[in-house]
């Protein structure tokens, strides 16, 4: 792919649609609006139940390990940076840079998931907070678990894209595929910022 050819592609305007916004991008934005409501309801559930702890519920502060969670939050934020670099790379047709950025994003995503698995095991086996034994456990594990599932889906999607980039079929023209995947990944990050604030930090005020 020559650099002159690259210059003719405008990644912010799709001439085949009425609005100039690519269909896949619009689909992803609409989906994310839907997902906002999804997490909104789940986070609300947690915040409501937080106000009505039945007797015997362990204080969340004694369970949480804010240092670990802060670390994994930082890692997830950095993965968003790498995701942005990946989108930038494919828009310039730079496959090599794309692969490194994707690989780093996946790696950071996996670290986040690893931290979550460690955290869950720690809560269950050391702190004796399980999904069934208290309302805190119920809402905490369901909410963060659902977010973790979103991260896992993202990691699988990213890995699929990374493998696909070796087939030679992924070119600058397909940058919208990487870009909409990036939108999803950033959204999952932003949701985590909200969860980190509403579930963890709130307990330390």
């Amino acid at each position, binding site marked *: 792919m020559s650099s002159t050819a690259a210059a003719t592609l405008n990644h912010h305007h799709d001439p085949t649609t*009425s609005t100039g916004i690519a269909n896949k991008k619009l689909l992803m934005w609409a989906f994310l609006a839907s997902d906002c409501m999804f997490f909104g309801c*789940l986070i609300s559930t947690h915040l409501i139940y937080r106000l009505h702890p039945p007797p015997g519920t362990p204080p969340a502060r004694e369970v949480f390990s804010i240092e670990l969670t802060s670390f994994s939050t930082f890692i997830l934020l950095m993965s968003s940076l790498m995701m942005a670099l990946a989108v930038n790379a494919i828009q310039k047709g730079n496959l090599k840079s794309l692969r490194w950025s994707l690989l780093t994003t996946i790696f950071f995503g996996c670290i986040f998931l690893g931290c979550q698995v460690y955290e869950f095991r720690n809560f269950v086996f050391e702190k004796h907070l399980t999904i069934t034994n*208290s309302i805190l456990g119920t809402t905490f594990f369901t909410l963060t678990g659902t977010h973790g599932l979103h991260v896992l889906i993202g990691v699988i999607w990213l890995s699929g894209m990374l493998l696909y980039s070796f087939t030679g079929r992924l070119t600058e023209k397909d940058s919208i595929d990487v870009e909409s995947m990036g939108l999803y990944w950033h959204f999952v990050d932003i949701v985590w910022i909200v969860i980190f604030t509403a579930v963890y930090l709130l307990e330390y005020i």
Partner: protein
Amino acid sequence: MEALAKTDFLAKDDLPEKPFVLWRPTAKTGLMSWLTTVDHKRIGFLYGISGLFFFIFGGIEALLIRIQLAVPNNTFLTSAQYSEMFTMHGTTMIFLVVMPIGAAFFNFIMPLQIGARDVAFPRLNAFSFWTFLVGAIIVNLGWFMKGGAPDAGWFGYAPLTTRTFSPTHAIDMWVMGLQLLGVASIAAALNFIVTIINLRAPGMTMMRLPVFTWMTLFTSFLIILSFPAITIALIEIMMDRLFGTNFFEVSNGGLPILWQHLFWIFGHPEVYILILPAMGIISEILPTFARKPLFGYPVVVFSGASIGFLGFGVWSHHMFTTGMGTTATAAFALMTMAIAVPTGVKIFNWIGTLWGGHLSMRTPMMFALGFLWMFMIGGLSGVMHAAAPADAQQHGSYFIVAHFHYVLIGGSLFALFAGIHYWFPLMFGRRVSEFWGKLAFWLVFVGFNVTFFPMHFLGLEGMPRRTFTYDANMGWNTGNFWSTVGAFILAIGVAVYFLTMIYTYFRGARTTRDPWDARTLEWSLPNPPPEYNFRVLPTVHARDDWWYEKRHTQEIAREAAEHARAEDAHGGIHMPFQSIYPFCASVGILIGAIGVAVVDPANPAQYPGFWGPKIAVTILGGAIMFVSVVLWSLEGNEGYHIHLNEDGSIKDDAGHAPAGH
């Protein structure tokens, strides 16, 4: 360089050689063609036929309910059977009848109205339908199982749905089925949103969109924003039932009231999901048969938008009797009164459309006028519920049943019947008999009113909903008897309506293009419309563009010839390839859902750890779905090109497209 700047949509012309896995099905007839179809019109038919099929089920359930209530102390049904009947009647009519028939119109009509050749994501559209069907199957599986059908009401209030009170798999199936219906609806709605915003023909500005298309857009937004609430509610109850969590477990701090809030945050927008498409259909039919443009088009559009917007702020009027406190009650009462305003504005606009028009009393118009009147009665009894003290008396009584049947039958169903009759000539090229159509209308109209009008009085006299029988000395005998008589008249009317449709499909008189002398673009097509919809993509000049075209034939013909040449030079008409993977993904979902909802949990003595048939079936289904989705994305969204002769037939030498359609 220029080739690079083109998108896939224009550039890829040749069929790839048939690969080992990613072969593209090309069947145009037979079972395979339906399983692999990506044509929005065929998918529309699939939705419509499924909706009508379940309409029979829901109708039979309703008749059984009415037979049971015809006389006091009846023993036709047991109380348990009665609970199954009203639960499945509600669930079926809302999710498996009105929504899919609405989706049938969205699919078939909306792309034609905006001058598009398909929806934005044809394969996703197929996936939506198949997943809808899977959800419908799961919800109804209970009829064939030992545990029976779901019996906790269409609203499934916790803690009645928890394992303590509903130990069988019936509720698991209801939960899983509704979950999948939600996935299907959201996927379809996302598709419609992108289609309407991005696939409009040149000149089709937003304020030129036909009102039905506008209502499709608003409904789709309501779907994507309200369904997540029930998704979460269903996940929570599923977690409670499968893993023993405490969301609705009162002894461990759960709050069952949360279910009601989450359910109605979805449930109230849902009623607008059911009525907005109906309002769109009516806004197409009234101008056509009044021979006038719609009165106050922008106002009708914006009141549709404000109904959708306000619809998210009124959910707690379903919960006035739960003791939310005076502030919340007052706020929700005010919002509920406020939402009556845009609805009333629409009614006045429809009356304004009729005013001074040359009314042509054809069957669709009869149903549309019936809608106007009946929906208004339903609206008036609805706004009565906004007054919280009055609502406390009406809550859970037959007054509510009367109200929502007036808006759902007198509103939604009348409009859907009007729409079926109105668009039948376009869909099948045959015209429905006026005599039989009008006979059906009068039977439905009379039967409907005889059934549901007495329920207002029954409710005010204190007859509660969802009771399977009553004593003879309550003063409810006459009302219930006539209500049952009315139900059978209504059933006969519906039967006449559909038998007429079936007869017309096979034997009806052939009709010409645009038999109603209508106003919107779908009528510019030959009937039934060809696979590629528009021989030449239209350029839109006015709000009722087909009306404009009919009066500017020379200008349009010149334009069309120019565009046809340009399109031919660009490589012809692009058609998407068919695909089997959306169907495969839905089959995977079906298997997984059976694993989650139907298979018994493993006996720990028999299997190590958490392994067992339940996990195995679920993982198998998930794996099939995953592989299908991967293949789906690998096969890509390519298509082929066709070239047309002057008369619209497909040129044989044009690429690899099979001749005919």
